[in-house]
């Protein structure tokens, strides 16, 4: 099983976390570490790109919810990029579509941070 985590700086102090592979109970700690490290360094506006994620479960959702909670304490936000219908369905049934900004591409997700 694989998970790829790539972090890169974007415009206006925003950071993009690009994830690829499968996010489950085994791999989600790696994702959590990468995101929490960014937040600990004072970056509170994040785009998390799930375009290359094939699978996510409740532990992965828990990481995203935890990140959103942390950045909101500092006036920041987390926007997601996701077009995979199966993953969007999980956000739908859990009601997380109402909590996260979910965009079809990275450009729109970054624009919405501003």
């Amino acid at each position: 099983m694989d998970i790829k985590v790539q972090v890169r700086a974007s415009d206006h102090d925003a950071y993009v976390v690009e994830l690829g592979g499968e996010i489950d109970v085994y791999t989600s700690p790696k994702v959590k570490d990468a995101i929490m490290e960014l937040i600990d360094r004072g970056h509170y506006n994040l785009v998390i790109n799930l375009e290359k994620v094939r699978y996510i479960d409740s532990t992965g959702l828990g990481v995203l919810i935890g990140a959103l909670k942390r950045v909101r304490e500092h006036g920041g936000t987390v926007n997601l990029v996701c077009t995979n219908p199966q993953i969007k369905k999980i956000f739908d049934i859990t009601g997380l579509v109402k909590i996260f900004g979910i965009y079809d591409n990275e450009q729109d997700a970054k624009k919405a941070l501003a």
Partner: protein
Amino acid sequence: MNVPARSEALVGTVDLRIPSEPEWVAVARLAVSAIANRLPFSVEEIEDVKLAVAEACTTCIQDSPGEHFIDITCDVAERSLRIRVRDHAFERSEAARPRAVAFSEGLGVFIIQALMDDVEYNVDPKSGTELVMTKRVGS
């Protein structure tokens, strides 16, 4: 454990035992996906089954740290798949009640209930926890 009666005849049963460790959940997911693929499920239905099984295994691992294994039984019928996921946390009977509450309220179980057609679980202090879930073709 109480196993609900089936209305369809079984065409096969597959048993799988995995170590109760996070790195093995993917194995359960892929094995059950391969079994579901033998039925006329859509791709989306197979994805639902995969996620439901993974959530059940994850719940076992998170709620019962230190247990050695998880048993997964797949009862295959012509147009339905019933999956039983059992852990064996019977040594901590005093913990059974809080575990039952946690089990019913977790996000994982919420997802399972949304994706599968029938879901029930039994917490037995003598034999552990069993989640029984069924997916029917085209439902």
